[in-house]
């Protein structure tokens, strides 16, 4: 029945392609999104805030508790606008992701697609002044970034893997990360300082912490797991271990690094 409905929906889409945008309730194929002006994005935002934010968050960054994913980066269930449209239209069976109202016009669904698209940066729309070649060189030489960060399996373990960082960070965010690394540190990159019952102190990056235990990776990449009730104390340092590059790199070098990092994507 579901297949039949889907097929009928596709047939209807093809047959009515000229009228497509005036219909509602059908799946999209490849007509693309004609509703992608700023007006449409704002309309999509308003719909999102009202209908979607309860699970996905007002900032669309998702919610572990509801299981609703972060919509601001790469989406796992859809890679195209059509795919996003179809998920919004039909929901995801067996999950709390319900379809939108069946009488919601396709135009409004497309506006929502446009809003979700606006949450991630489309590299085709970004023209950065920095040099990718210089950036790649800085990464491994003067910047010494690779002593802590891996790209495609090469580099250190003391910072996030940057192989696909361009998918999740905008150029502005990458710039901020380099100049002001303590501003927005994810808990994974906090430092934990553990003192055991003999007084020995061990420090490392916070790989995971829960109600009864904590796990760290130390400077030598040793992994340690401590039950909280078997140590004397532990301390969180909610700062980054990364230095600021304000003093060590010139403005143009930072621009080169931003351009290089922003180019790091799956398709490259």
């Amino acid at each position, binding site marked *: 029945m579901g297949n039949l409905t889907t097929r009928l929906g596709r047939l209807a889409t093809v047959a009515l392609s000229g009228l497509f945008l005036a219909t509602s309730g059908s799946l999209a194929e490849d007509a693309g999104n004609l509703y992608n002006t700023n007006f449409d994005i704002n309309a999509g935002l308003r719909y999102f805030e009202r209908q979607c934010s*309860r699970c996905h968050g007002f900032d669309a960054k998702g919610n572990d*508790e509801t299981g609703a994913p972060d919509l601001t980066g790469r989406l796992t269930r859809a890679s195209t606008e059509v795919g996003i449209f179809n998920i919004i239209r039909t929901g995801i069976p067996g999950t709390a992701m319900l379809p939108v109202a069946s009488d919601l016009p396709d135009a409004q669904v497309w506006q929502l697609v446009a809003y979700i698209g606006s949450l991630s940066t489309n590299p085709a729309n970004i023209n950065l002044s920095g040099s990718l070649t210089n950036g790649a060189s800085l990464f491994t030489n003067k910047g010494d970034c690779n002593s802590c960060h891996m790209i495609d399996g090469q580099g250190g373990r003391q910072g996030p893997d940057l192989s696909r960082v361009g998918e999740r960070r905008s150029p502005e965010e990458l710039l901020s990360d380099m100049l002001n690394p303590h501003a927005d540190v994810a*808990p994974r990159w906090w430092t934990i300082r553990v003192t055991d019952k003999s007084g020995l102190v061990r420090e490392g990056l916070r790989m995971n912490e829960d109600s009864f235990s904590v796990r760290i990776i130390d400077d030598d990449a040793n992994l340690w797991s401590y039950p909280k009730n078997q140590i004397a104390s532990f301390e969180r340092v909610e700062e980054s271990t990364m230095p600021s590059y304000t003093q060590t790199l010139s403005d143009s070098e930072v621009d080169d690094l931003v351009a290089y990092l922003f180019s790091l994507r799956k398709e490259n």
Partner: protein
Amino acid sequence: MNRFPLLLTGIFLALPLQAQEDEFQTVITPAFSPVTWERLVNAESEPENWMMYSGTLDSQRYSRLDQINTDNVTELEMKWSYQIPVIDRAETVPTVVDGIMFITEAPSNLTAVDARTGRVYWRYDHELPEDLRICCGRNNRGVAILGETLFMSTLDAHLVAIDARTGNVLWDVEVADYEAGYSKTAAPLIVKDKVVTGIAGGEFGIRGFIDAYDPVTGELEWRTYAIPGPGEPGNDSWSGDSWKTGGAATWITGSYDPDLNLIYWGTGNPGPDWNGDVRLGDNLYSDSALALNGDTGEIAWHFQFTPHDVHDYDSIQVPILADIEYQGSTRKVMMWANRNAFFYTIDRETGEFLEGEAYASQTWAQGLDPNGRPIRVPGMAPTYEGILVSPPIVGATNWYSPGYSQQTGLFYVTSFDGEQEFFKRDEDYEEGERFTGGGGRYNQPMDAFHSSIRAINPATAEIEWEFPIMPRSSAGITTTAGGIVFTGSADGYFFALDAASGEELWHISLGARVHAAPMTFAVDGQQFVTIASGNVVYTFGLKDN
């Protein structure tokens, strides 16, 4: 019906393996007997059974079982697990009667299993429409039972009566129109010869109510609206026609005092949640405790925790009833740790406010006045640009059950010290559409906040101890005569604390978020404790000697 098992008996006994004999014994065990009203009133005296959502009508979640206690709780081991076949989160609190466990599942299904093994007797799958209107997940939290009939709420706002022996549907009634945004997630409560049940949909501009149904026919006996209609006291606490879409859903199970013949039930936020401009006034009886006559549903008294709420501080908590020593005399009280971060002790005969203090981080109120009404901090209402307020939308606590121990006289609650930016939006009401008027946004990672299990003295509203956990737990609490507080955490632990001191006694990692409350029961003289984590129902008991 009995001939087949007896036939099998002969076959199995002929087999040499002891394990197979043991396994077989459970097939012929339970002599399920009807659950009379008298049994429910005296549920505390048959602690081997857990016959309603909160264990007993007073909702203390205190079990007299003490086989598992502070001395031996470290000897707990898993006895069985039941994998819920529908992948979703489980908020179920199972019910156990005479060795049979009834487990509700997402989205609106029900299974009966052997409580000693977790093996299935029968299963009921409720057929749901595809265009549900639900705000916050496909949840179901449990059943009620009377006689040999189970009563379950469903997401399409129906109440279903199911034969406890077979899973057959006896009747299925529409409580409200799901297309208008109504839904049902909570376990009903049996009150004498009626099935009392609430409604969800506070994010869709519904008008909340509490209903009572005939358990045999499914006919509606009475309905009490949580928002008074025109001409009724309190209707003037809503500007214009805003009462019609004012929310005040009733989406968690209440409690009952047989001596006073009063039902106690919490109500949810006024709608739209975060824009109070369109519903000026106190918005009675949103965010309130209602005391209803057990026969007629008539409102005997109300206590509004958060007048004119603009932060979604539902009073959807399970009321705990106890008789406590208060200022030199025994007092019949109701204890309530509210989503708004204040704890209240209230006289449950009259609704008089006795004690109240903040038990978690909050920035919206300077405190409570002598009548328990909050004294607001000016300028903390949501704005178009966003304003930081504590507690956040999810609250200092929420729907998950608190507990009370008759041994310690302490009240236990899962609490969250968080904050969030609150936003206001302008929205027009459209039937069946969300009607919330804004939303919220965290500005720090969840790990930056704090959560605790807190023990509160109801006579003083003071915190006696706290046990820190990672934020933000949505697990309920159960206490036992073994001196234990059982609960769970957001990071997938199930654990036992000393009810007197708060010290950790035992924990186990179940690996997925605990969204449910534990419950305890016994079969054949052995005590078990059950908790749902992620998609699985786990049952623990002491190691076999």
